[in-house]
Structure formats: structure tokens, C-alpha cells
């Protein structure tokens, strides 16, 4: 293998050339892309609606309850991490 290959041909050689690696690359990138994209969009949404969502006001009501440590994983909590 030549050492002076530029990154394009490296990508070609390791990813695009074989269908198996290509599919793998598609799957892996889509997983990461979707995670980041979802987080990005939710961050935008929260920024637009600062102070209005439950997540922004729940601290006012939470301190007394929930001693048993059990809390239902709501969609909001999952998105807030």
C-alpha cells in the first residue's frame, strides 16, 4: 500500500470500496448523526421556549416528594440529559 495516499483515497479504500464496509459506515454514521441531530433540535426548542416547559419549572415542586427514589422515566427526562 502506498503511503502518500490522500484522505479521499483512504476513505475510498477503507469504506466505499466494499459494500460491507460501506453499509457499516452508513449504519454507524446514522446512529451518531441521529443522536446529535436530535439533541441539537431539542436544544433549539428549549432555547426558544425557555421557562415554559415542565423541565424548567419542575424544581419548584420536586424537593419535597419522591423520597422513595422511584420515578417514572418520562420522555422529558430522557430528552433532558
Amino acid at each position, binding site marked *: 500500500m502506498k503511503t502518500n495516499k490522500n484522505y479521499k483515497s483512504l476513505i475510498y479504500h477503507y469504506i466505499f470500496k466494499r459494500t460491507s464496509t460501506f453499509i457499516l459506515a452508513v449504519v454507524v454514521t446514522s446512529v451518531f448523526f441521529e443522536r446529535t*441531530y*436530535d439533541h441539537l*433540535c*431539542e436544544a*433549539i*426548542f428549549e432555547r*426558544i*421556549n425557555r421557562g*415554559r*416547559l*415542565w423541565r*424548567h*419549572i*419542575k424544581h*419548584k*415542586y*420536586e424537593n*419535597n*416528594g*419522591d423520597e422513595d427514589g422511584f*420515578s*417514572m422515566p*418520562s*420522555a*422529558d*427526562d430522557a430528552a433532558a440529559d
Partner: protein
Amino acid sequence: MAASLGRICRTTSLLKPSSGPIYSQVNNFTTTKEWSKGRKLLTACLGVTAGGIGALLFSLDRSVRAIEIVAHAPHYHWPWTGLFQSLDHASMRRGWEVYKNVCSACHSLEYVAYRHLVGVTHTEAEAKALAAEIEVRDGPDDQGNYFMRPGKLSDHIPSPYPNEEAARAANNGAYPPDLSYIVNARHGGEDYVFSLLTGYCDPPAGIVLREGQNFNPYFPGGAIGMAQVIYDEVLEFEDGTPPVASQVAKDVCAFLMWTSNHEYDDRQVLAIKTIGIGSLLCALLFYLKRFKFSHVKNTKLAFIPKKK
């Protein structure tokens, strides 16, 4: 519009044959070129008439609404009015208080369960406490008997009346509808409910109200079986917001907006996601089109006759 008019009237001047071999080919393909003057005129007239009738119907449809004897609710600027705006959860929490203290005396909310409130207007502990306040008939137990137990998160909000007949009997024959989906079930939605709650006034001369009826210009027909229920200081908000009538009405509308559209906030996030991905794909498609067409547009076809 302008393009099709132009095509009918002045086909040749739009597509100049001098601008290259491809264009002159296209020019030859147009079917309107051979039309007689009369035919072109007729087609243009038909087009104008069709457009005119459409515009007329549209404007008639808009103005016909003035015929009904009912006041139309104005459009208010709600917290969720506009692109990507979420519901106001603090307002919805107060709205729940309003429902519980005022509306629940007559209206059911049967499609909302206590578990729905968790993570929306209340914490789980609070929702459990709310649910425990009610008594639910459950059973049969292992003796086959029905019994009463305190409510659980999975229980739905109890209805004030056991059935519609009982509700009518208690309200002079008028049936207080279930409020779960009322915002989606009425023209004007939350604007209507707000106007209805705050719009009570004395009936104008000539309107006779029967026993138990009240006048409300926003209610179709004017005579509504529900009395005015929202006044200044009709309840006290736990968070100290001054309970003036418009605030109370706004908060209960915010709550009812949510009961009708549990997924409202998710839809806003989804809109952001869709528009983002959509514009990305749009840009890609645009590039792809240019890329493919650069080939087509740069191709020259030449006919070279065989030399003998």
C-alpha cells in the same frame, strides 16, 4: 400565470429561436403556436373567467360568515401561537387548579388520567397524592364483592355525574360536554373557549332566555345553559398569580389545550427536526439536479452527414 398567458398569446417571442438549437427545438414542440387568434382569445377569456369565479367564491365564503348570529372569537396571542412555540406548563398547572376547583363540578374530563399529569403539570408524587384524593369503585375481590379504594395514577379523572341523563337533570336539560377534547371540538378552539368563558353579558332587547339560561354572544344561538363561572378571585392560585378573570380563563384554556393535544410539544420539536432535515435534503437535491443537468446542458449534438 404570467407564463401560461404569455405562452398562449406570444409564444414565439418568449422562446426565441435564435437562442440556440435546443431552445428552438422546444419552441417547435409547443402546441399553442399554431392556434388561430380567435382560439387564443377564447382560451384567455376562459382562463380569466375561471379565475374570477374562483376569487368570487372565495370572497363569498369569507363574507358569508357574517350571516350567523354569533360573535366570532378574536384571535389571541397564546403562549403557543407561532412557529416552534411550546405550551406554557406553569399556566397549565394553574389551569388544572381551575378545572379542579371550578369546572369539575359540572364537566367530566374522562380521557385524562392522573398519570398523564406526571411530567407535564405535576411531579409523580403530587399526581399520586391527587389521585389518592378520589375514591374508585373496583372489584370484584376474591369474595366477588365490589369495593371502594383510593385512586391510583392509572385512574382517570372522575366525572361529576354518573351519566348524561343525570347531568342534564342537574343542569336544566343542558348537557355539560366532556372537556377533554373541547378545544379541538369547537370552531375557534382555545380562542372560542376563552371568549365563551369571559364573554357573558346582558341579553340585548328581544332575546328571551328560558329558566336557567344565560346570554353569551359567542355561543351559537346566544342562550347557553352554563352560567358565568369565572370571576375575579374565583379561586386562589397556589403559585400566587393574581386570579383575575382573564388570567383564570387563560390558564384553563391552556390546560384544555393540552388535554386536547397531549403531543403538542413533541410536534413542535418534530417540526424543527423535519424542517432541518428537509432543508438539508433540499440543498442536496438542488446540487444533485445541477450536477446531473450540467451534463445535459453542456452536450452538443451534431449531425455530420457522411461524405461520399
